């Protein structure tokens, strides 16, 4: 048997993500929190898996989604589910609050960062607990932030202006959803790894509601595209 000495007996460190999820945008609205993510997993620049429903329900009042390495995302979902199941193990019906999940994930990410083997993710945890909205961001280093609005990936560059202009923390659910759709419209135009099918989910007093994926409206029938008015054929 031939063992490749590079790969055997040695711990590997994640240096680059392979299958990646796109941007995530989450906004608080009056009465809850709404999260949007596209349904694409890219394999480098290839749009490989186009119908991935990413938003994970972690507990009755918490949802989780992240951008970055998708296998790490799946692993984190398993880890968080483990914690949720602890209520069953201890027989006490005590479920962690969304903030508990956020902090746990921050500790997990920080531990991995210290080993120079990160969970290659920017994480968003959203929930509603005891009458309070919760929205948390945990990045690849384990930095933990709570905020009224959260963006990951390219959305942090393209979408903050849109959010600033059209959203406030006391808007209605529909207004917040519209802002997110608008953001993904822009992302589809500008981010090469974005997709026009997105999924929205919101958490309010009644619990979590994860919606079916929807296609974002985009306009491509500009006469310039159709008629190729600006193209001139080169002739020698």
């Amino acid at each position, binding site marked *: 048997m031939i063992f490749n000495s590079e790969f055997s007996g040695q711990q590997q460190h994640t240096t680059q993500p392979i299958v990646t999820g796109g941007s995530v945008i989450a906004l608080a609205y009056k009465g809850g929190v709404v999260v949007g993510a596209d349904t694409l997993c890219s394999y480098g620049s290839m749009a490989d898996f186009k119908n991935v429903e990413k938003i994970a329900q972690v507990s009755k009042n918490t949802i989780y989604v992240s951008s970055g390495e998708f296998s790490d995302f799946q692993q984190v979902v398993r880890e968080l589910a483990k914690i949720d199941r602890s209520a069953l193990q*201890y027989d*006490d019906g*005590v479920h*962690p609050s969304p903030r508990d999940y956020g*902090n*746990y994930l921050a*500790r997990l990410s920080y531990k991995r960062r210290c080993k120079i083997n990160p969970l290659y993710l920017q994480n968003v945890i959203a929930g509603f607990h005891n009458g309070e909205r919760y929205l948390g961001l945990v990045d690849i280093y384990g930095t933990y932030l709570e905020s009224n609005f959260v963006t990951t990936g390219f959305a942090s560059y393209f979408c903050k202006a849109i959010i600033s202009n059209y959203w406030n923390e006391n808007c209605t659910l529909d207004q917040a959803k519209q802002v997110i759709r608008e953001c993904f419209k822009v992302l589809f135009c500008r981010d090469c790894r974005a997709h026009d099918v997105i999924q929205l989910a919101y958490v309010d007093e009644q619990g979590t509601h994860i919606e079916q994926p929807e296609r974002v409206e985009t306009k491509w029938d500009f006469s310039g595209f159709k008629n190729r008015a600006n193209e001139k054929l080169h002739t020698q």
Partner: protein
Amino acid sequence: MLKHLYDTDCVTWSPQGKLFQVEYAMEAVKQGSICLGLKSSENVVLCSLKRQPSELAGYQEKQFKIDDHMAIAIAGLTADARVLCKYMRTECLEYKYTYESHHPVGRLVFKVAEKSQHKTQSGAKRPYGVGLLVAGIDPNGVHLFETCPSGNYYEYKCQAIGSRSQAARTYFESWFHLFEKSTLEQLVLHGLSAIKKAIMEDEELNEKNVEVGILGKNLKFTHLNAQELKDYIAKLEGFNPNSQIQQE
């Protein structure tokens, strides 16, 4: 009953289905001086009688803070209690580090019970010789638990353990229906009245031999200081639970 045939270690059952070593460990708890706890819908109060080994010595503390939202009162072997106390404190600290929130009380008691049970199922170990009254507050509400050397745990509205605790429990049986709506002050006075039932004729309650710890939904665990204890003990004279009924 030829007890001595079956009581050498934890791994021997008696024909009657008893583990004598565990039962002997529970005796050790009954030898400790009394400690009791009682709760209302908002507060938990722990009261204990401290023993003084000799004139020259100080009084043995019986209540220990585990975290801001949790405390224990012990009866039995103090050394064993220290081990459990350290374990509980460590668990709370780790939980807070990971989740930034307080360890659910029932869950920690469960962990202590697991630890205690483990000691009852080995040839080389002995059970912890201490019973704990765990007072704590978490999102599930206000709690008072008792743990045993056997590894059992129970939740209570009020409970007393240790030497002459039956007298205190009898007091509780008469008055516990008032505790739910009691104010913190009334709760402390009930606790001290119950302890008073359990002391010897020639003993008296004073701020040196009594320890009172209080915990509330918005009140981190604190011990009453000497002056506060003196004031409460003075109030005991005029304390009449019957008047509390008239208020309701």
